């Protein structure tokens, strides 16, 4: 496709998204954001942010899962995610230590959701072990389940699963890769 045709296509797609939004036809809006961790994909529903994805996950694959779990009417639309993008920019610039965003937790349930709801209790610049997190949620034996809850956190960075480490201080795992986890921990250490 020529550059001009591509431009026309993008404008048409953008107008379509605005009209669709005005008619309440969108299940999920998404946009991309450049960050020190590479490109991120942000997705939201009417209720709030529903997903933050790393490039390594494959954005189209993530959109496919959202189509399956949330709804097929997914369109690229930046406006509803502007606030989230600004807050993430501020976070990466060391100006922001917590997020103030509406969240839609519909991708999680049960104990995983409980853990993810408890994660913001770990403050910026601090860390906790999987074991401590299990105790904090009232299930001290559920260390592995805490690990799973962190690994399947649909809202990484904003819901700070990167602040949970192994008891010996090693990093454990991270959806965005260990390097991403290290970058986030270093970023918070440098500012706090």
């Amino acid at each position, binding site marked *: 496709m020529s550059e001009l045709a591509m431009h026309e296509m993008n404008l*048409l797609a953008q107008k*379509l998204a605005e009209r669709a939004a005005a008619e309440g*036809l969108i299940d999920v809006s998404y946009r991309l954001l450049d960050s020190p961790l590479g490109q991120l994909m942000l997705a939201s529903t009417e209720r709030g942010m529903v997903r933050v994805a790393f490039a390594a996950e494959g954005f189209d694959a993530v959109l*496919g899962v959202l*189509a399956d779990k949330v709804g*097929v*009417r997914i369109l690229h639309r930046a406006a509803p995610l502007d606030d989230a993008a600004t807050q993430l920019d501020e976070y990466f610039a060391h100006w922001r230590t917590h997020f103030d965003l509406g969240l839609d937790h519909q991708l999680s349930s049960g104990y995983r959701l409980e853990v993810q709801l408890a994660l913001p209790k770990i403050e910026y610049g601090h860390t906790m072990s999987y074991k401590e997190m299990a105790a904090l949620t009232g299930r001290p034996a559920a260390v592995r389940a805490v690990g799973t809850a962190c690994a399947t956190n649909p809202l990484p960075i904003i819901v700070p699963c990167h602040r949970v480490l192994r008891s010996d201080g090693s990093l454990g795992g991270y959806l965005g890769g260990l390097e991403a986890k290290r970058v986030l921990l270093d970023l918070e250490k440098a500012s706090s």
Partner: protein
Amino acid sequence: MEIKTNPPFDLVVRDHGPAVLRMCSALLGPGHDAQDAWSETFLAALRAYPQLAVGANLQAWLITIAKRKAIDALRTKHPIPVESLPEQEASVDGFDDLELLESLHSLTELQRKVIGYHYLLGFPYADIPAFLGGTATSLRRAAADGIKTLRKELTNSKDLS
């Protein structure tokens, strides 16, 4: 892997948006009318998308909607009463819609429009002068010349592949 859901609509727009725009441009001329028909097509598609059968042929589905929108656009622009509505789609042996569409660009504007209105949108030749002027006979001749060019082109491109 079992397909449980149709793809995200954004992917449908990215995959099929350009072809639908080419079709609208071929029928309505490039510019505003084609863009409006494109927008109406995808908005209608978006409304119906959650109810669409999983694994449906998305391209065929979109082309069907786009045809309806192109007919609407022609009727709005040419409020001359057209006696018979296009009900049955005429088809040309050996062309499927999209192949035909892609080849339309090698025709003159008149040939492209007559063939588009008759074979894609299903208007009888008698109705087409209302949109394009001329007579049914002259338009039928233009279509026949165009089809000859198309056949040659499609045969050549098949020989190449």
